């Protein structure tokens, strides 16, 4: 086929390249988030994520306080290594950085390239080399605090799990270290009330019952609509197709009021019921479409052999419908995991009962608006599970989409 006509090799190349470009364009946003979630907070603001594999030039300030001032003639000389000074020693503990430039005022922190001689405010001279060694000479007696030095250093790429730990536990690195020192276990730190880990667990708590419960109810209904004869069947099917597109927004206020009246209020039970109700039309529609396609012979011969409808359903239909059940389960799982609206309305609004999506949209985007590393890590925690489900179960998902492309 491909070589009959109209398919030159040039065209083939064009197709290959344009698909490659499209795929790259589709991936770039996600890759950016993924890379950023592993980067050190200072590096994120200093260079774009596409520069993540390269070293970053960051500006630091310190005081020349690691060497004793010595007298040489009528001049005072201080010699030492910047990386060893107390203010930055911790940041350069692994000793892989090199200095690119330095300065003596906060206004021009990188006024002089490394290795050259700069002039200090008191009329002395300062030389800082790439390896961090410096020499400061002055006519006046240096004070104990040491000369203020600014410098730009190329720091190697710094990939860390810190963002993830910080967001999951709601504690900064220092707070976590303190907690460890006090003898708390990792698990105890993780179960902190304010941490996103709590919201992650909440999301599972919402999702799993909301996925399992509608399946059974829908399966029985779908069987009745597919294989049992009764008046009004066509009308019911039409109703279900209609209900597929009812906007959720309509349901919010009346159902919340109903839940409040019958005492469920804003709670997990409420959201399970709501998701069950909202998921049913698609479940019934998908399963009915699939069950109708099952071979009539099997069902009729079972009937002839004296099987009841209940037996036919549990022994024949359910096992045969596994692909459809799986594809609905994936849909419902993705939908409930990713849902923001229903969770916002039917769950209480305190941090401890929020799900991931609500926590990110309502809380983190506001309070951590500029903290990109934290935001990226939070987003990735919430994205990871559905993406994993997606890639492992893609076969069923596609089959389900093709069976009922109406929702």
């Amino acid at each position, binding site marked *: 086929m491909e070589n009959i006509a109209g*398919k030159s090799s040039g065209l083939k190349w064009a197709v290959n390249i344009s698909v490659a470009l499209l795929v790259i364009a589709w991936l770039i946003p996600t890759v950016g*988030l993924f890379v950023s979630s592993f980067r050190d907070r200072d590096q994120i603001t200093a260079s774009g994520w596409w520069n993540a594999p390269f070293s970053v030039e960051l500006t630091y300030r310190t005081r020349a306080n690691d060497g004793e001032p010595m007298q040489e003639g009528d001049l005072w000389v201080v010699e030492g290594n910047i990386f060893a000074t107390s203010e930055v020693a911790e940041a350069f503990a692994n000793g892989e950085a090199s200095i690119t430039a330095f300065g003596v005022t906060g206004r021009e922190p990188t006024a002089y390239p490394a290795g050259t001689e700069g002039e200090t405010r008191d009329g002395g001279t300062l030389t800082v080399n790439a390896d961090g060694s410096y020499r400061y000479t002055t006519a006046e007696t240096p004070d104990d605090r040491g000369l203020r030095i600014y410098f730009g250093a190329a720091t190697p790429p710094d990939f860390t799990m810190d963002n993830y730990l910080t967001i999951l536990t709601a504690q900064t690195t220092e707070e976590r270290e303190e907690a460890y020192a006090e003898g708390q276990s990792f698990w105890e730190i993780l179960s902190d009330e304010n941490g996103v880990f709590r919201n992650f667990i909440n999301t599972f708590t919402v999702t799993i*019952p909301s996925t399992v419960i509608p399946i059974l109810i829908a399966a029985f*209904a779908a069987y009745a609509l597919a294989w049992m004869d009764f008046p009004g069947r066509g009308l019911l099917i*039409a109703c279900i197709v209609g209900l597929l*597109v009812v906007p959720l927004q309509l349901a919010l*206020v009346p*159902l919340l009021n109903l839940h409040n009246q019958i005492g469920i209020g804003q709670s997990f039970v409420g959201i399970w019921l709501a998701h069950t109700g909202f998921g049913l039309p698609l479940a019934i529609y998908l399963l009915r479409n699939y069950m109708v396609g099952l071979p009539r012979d099997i069902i009729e011969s079972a009937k002839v052999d004296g099987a009841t409808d209940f037996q036919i359903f549990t022994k024949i239909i359910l096992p045969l419908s596994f692909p459809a059940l799986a594809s609905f389960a994936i849909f419902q799982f993705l939908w409930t995991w990713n849902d923001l609206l229903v969770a916002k309305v039917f769950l209480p609004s305190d941090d401890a009962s929020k799900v991931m999506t609500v926590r990110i*949209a309502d809380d983190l985007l506001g309070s951590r608006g500029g903290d990109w590393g934290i935001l990226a890590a939070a987003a990735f925690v919430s994205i990871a599970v559905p993406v994993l489900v997606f890639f492992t179960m893609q076969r069923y998902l596609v089959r389900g989409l093709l069976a009922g492309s109406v929702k």
Partner: protein
Amino acid sequence: MSPLLQGVITIVVGVFGCVGYFYAANLILDKVIFPPRGPQAGRNINRATAVRPWLFLFPAIFALSLYLVYPVIGSLWRSMHNRAGDEFIGLDNYGFLFGDPEFLQALLNNALWALVVPAAATFLGLLVAQLTDRLSWGNIAKSLIFMPMAISFVGASLIWKFVYAGDPDIGIINALRDVIGLDPMDPVQVPFWNNFFLMAILVWIQTGFAMVILSAALRGIPEETVEAAIIDGANPFQLFFKIKVPQIMGTIVVVWTTITILVLKVFDIVYTMTGGNFGTQILPSYMMSFMFRDDGRATAVAVVIMIVVLPVMIWNIRQAQKEMR
């Protein structure tokens, strides 16, 4: 721990409750109410057969009426009451809406969304489906473009917040502008065009959906028609637009309407990206601004959304009925 335990209990209760209900109801029907023996055995069997579908359907019908049918009527009723819900005020809430410039803007923006997103997603989906059709690594490419379907709207918004960020050291768009010497800008705050930047997020998500369905449709086209066209000397573009597209027109329409319905319901993107500011308000996020504050107005907006969706709904039902015949 307690909600987790609650969840496990709910699953067990729910599953056993369902199975128990169906089993017990069948048992009672067959053994107690209409036993297939005695003088009226024949009649009883017929009666049991007539009742059984409704036993199977009852839980579903109950849940559907409570969670989808009742709210339609409940919302309509509630939207004609005042904020407290104790006084009937007729169409006053709707009067307020149509006098509110923000509502009118939301309506206009929604119309834009409903036009642009389905068109762009369907077009791109069709393009990718056709391009990857005979590619050796087509399935991998499709899988990667399909992937955003699994990402939540909130997650996608965050991903794109990175892309759009105003700092050229964070946002790739501004980094590119920086390279060609333009000043950084915040795409989300550019009047009018920011709507399109938000739509891009939904297009990014939905293209995969369109692609999967259209790619299956393209595969379903009879080979003979394609071969005949090639023999008649059609070039690849003619082949695509004059032979293939007309044959999958039905599927294209289904994809288009499906995305349209989705677009009219999605509020997460606008809510996360702008909160409806900078002239990007749409109906679902406008509704959320009244949620928990003024139920009367919130339900009135919901009813407006319902009315907008109604034509698509009717069309869907017609299609489904046609298929069944």
